[in-house]
């Protein structure tokens, strides 16, 4: 279990942030403000400072995580008990803070792009961006199957009784709410307000595909996790909950970040739209 927690530290506070940081540095190096001014509404030094802060936050989280895990190990604490399930989750929440800050800053960045854009020309692609067009049928079927399967498994653990506000009831409610929220967020992302006013429609489509895949993957993970948690509960294997939780945290972080990064490669993005001289 300690090994898994150390791996969680390394994955979520070192490896994945390093991938993100590398990408951010590549963008500003290969597509600098001097040649692509429309991409950088703020001063260049602010972006460099932000990248450095992001790296530092992750390094601090990494060290703090290692200290906690090694400390518990040295104290001989047995973390293979149900109430220690919140340890990997708590670590995960802290490890996700820098990434959430990056996500929030991305929204601010896009808002700044929209405020900066004074062009009267608007461009859109004439390709429908519905779920059917964006995901493979197998992934869609996997999503539906995991959702319904999780509900069935949870119902089975309660002998299909579903006592109101009982454990099984609450678990199913969580699965349903998480999937609905995921679906609504996806709908907003796919056909909601245009966030980047310069983005090439082909890039928008590619980004939509990557994010849809990532969100579907997350939804499947939530459904499976909730079902397995419930099974562990009723089979009195609660000591495995911390193991399940750390696996879950690592899988969702690795899966969602790498799916998006692989789906939207820098080489495929049309950065010419951010040149000052770019005419549609």
């Amino acid at each position: 279990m300690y090994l898994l927690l150390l791996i969680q530290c390394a994955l979520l506070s070192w490896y994945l942030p390093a991938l993100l940081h590398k990408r951010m540095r590549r963008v500003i190096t290969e597509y600098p403000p001097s040649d692509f001014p429309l991409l950088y509404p703020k001063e260049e030094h602010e972006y460099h400072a932000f990248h450095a802060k992001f790296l530092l936050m992750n390094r601090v989280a990494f060290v703090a995580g290692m200290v906690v895990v090694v400390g518990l190990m040295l104290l001989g604490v047995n973390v293979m008990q149900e109430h220690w399930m919140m340890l990997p989750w708590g670590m995960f929440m802290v490890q996700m803070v820098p990434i959430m800050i990056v996500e929030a800053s991305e929204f601010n960045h896009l808002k700044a792009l929209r405020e900066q854009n004074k062009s009267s020309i608007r461009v859109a692609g004439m390709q429908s961006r519905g779920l059917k067009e964006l995901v493979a049928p197998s992934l869609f079927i996997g999503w539906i199957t995991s959702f319904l399967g999780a509900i069935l498994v949870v119902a089975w653990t309660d002998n299909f009784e579903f006592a109101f506000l009982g454990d099984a009831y609450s678990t199913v409610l969580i699965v349903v709410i998480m999937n609905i929220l995921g679906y609504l967020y996806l709908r907003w992302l796919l056909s909601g307000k245009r966030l980047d006013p310069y983005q090439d429609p082909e890039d928008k489509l590619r980004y939509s595909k990557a994010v849809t895949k990532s969100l579907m993957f997350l939804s499947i993970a939530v459904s499976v996790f909730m079902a397995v948690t419930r099974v562990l509960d009723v089979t009195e294997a609660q000591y495995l909950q911390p193991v399940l939780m750390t696996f879950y945290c690592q899988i969702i972080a690795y899966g969602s970040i790498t799916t998006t990064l692989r789906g939207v490669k820098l080489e495929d993005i049309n950065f010419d739209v951010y040149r000052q001289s770019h005419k549609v």
Partner: protein
Amino acid sequence: MLQIMVDIDSDVPLFTQLTDQIKSAIASDALLPGTKLPSIRQLANDLDLNNKTVAKAYRLLERDTVIQSKGYRGTFVHPDAKQNCGQDINDWISAEVQKLVGVLREGGATDSEIRIAFTNAMNK
């Protein structure tokens, strides 16, 4: 991917810019019959336009049998879109009105009487 472009500062109404470009794309086979079009909401948000503007463009294209709406399944390019793209309903309206005005004048109606009759008919 076919891209559509509008200029919000142009004198040409936005819905006309949309209908003209879609018809032009169909006429040049850039959009083929049966192709699914973006939803009104998606296109309006991508172009940062009001939903009503795009809805009006789609309504006019459907009236001209260039596109067809299939409810929740979406909006598609009509199978006969290519031959209908070249037709302009306004030309047809002008031609019919000219014919009618000609008939009325031959029957002895004055231009004022014809104008009053048209206005009353439009007000009904």
